[in-house]
């Protein structure tokens, strides 16, 4: 009985705080994406450049985001029937967009106007019990072009 109560409390806590955190994070992501839209991050390898050639500088952004108790529970249920795990999809989406934003912020601080050859890497850095995903890390990196003045 006590176990069940602890479980339900954790589930409720995870649901409440997890949703709140996600909501706030998405709000901040959308705001900053709007602000950084003038600095595109592109996956193109071959960049056109004029004369004089621009300076280049490597930029990177990383973020580690943890799942919450509720998300993990839902994903566990999904494991039985299979199909899309929506709770993890939003987690990874948030992490990727955040990493790209941080990379762009670094580029902006350098006075860059575009980032080329962007690569994104995802890894699960800590696995919880029974190999369940505990948190994911996303790293985004690329080369920022800075026009000479």
């Amino acid at each position, binding site marked *: 009985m006590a176990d069940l109560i602890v479980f339900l409390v954790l589930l409720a806590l995870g649901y409440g705080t997890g949703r709140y955190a996600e909501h706030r994070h998405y709000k901040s992501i959308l705001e900053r994406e709007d602000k950084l839209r003038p600095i595109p991050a592109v996956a193109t390898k071959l960049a056109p450049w004029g004369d004089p050639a621009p300076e*280049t500088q490597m930029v990177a952004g990383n973020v580690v985001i943890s799942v919450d108790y509720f998300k993990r529970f839902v994903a566990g249920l999904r494991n039985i029937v299979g199909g899309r795990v929506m709770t993890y999809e939003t987690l990874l989406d948030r992490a990727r967009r955040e990493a790209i934003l941080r990379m762009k912020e670094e580029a902006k601080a350098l006075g860059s106007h575009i980032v*080329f050859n962007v690569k994104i890497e995802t890894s*699960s850095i800590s696995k919880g019990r029974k190999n369940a995903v505990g948190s994911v890390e996303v790293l985004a990196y690329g*080369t920022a072009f800075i026009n000479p003045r």
Partner: protein
Amino acid sequence: MHVSTLEYAPGKKIKKHLGLVQGSTVRSKHVGRDLMAGLKNIFGGELKGYTELLHDSREEAMGRMVEQAQAAGANAVLNIRFSTSSVAQGAAELYAYGTAVVLE
């Protein structure tokens, strides 16, 4: 030292290729951070401690790669890639590699 994820340097010619250079570091998280991460696993959200830890470790891996490039007489590392792997429970390897070249 010029570092870039591109395979070339805009406006500069590559005089010489010196081959692959690499740097890696294996880091473990400490108990305090682990405890916090355990709590965060209930509530969700960003693990700032881990974000910083991985950022610093990656800088170190890059630093080692650059050292190797300097030792080889290069003045630039092109086409840099990062890779992460977990070697044991609680430890991660961060690896950076690229091509050392001499730019004119």
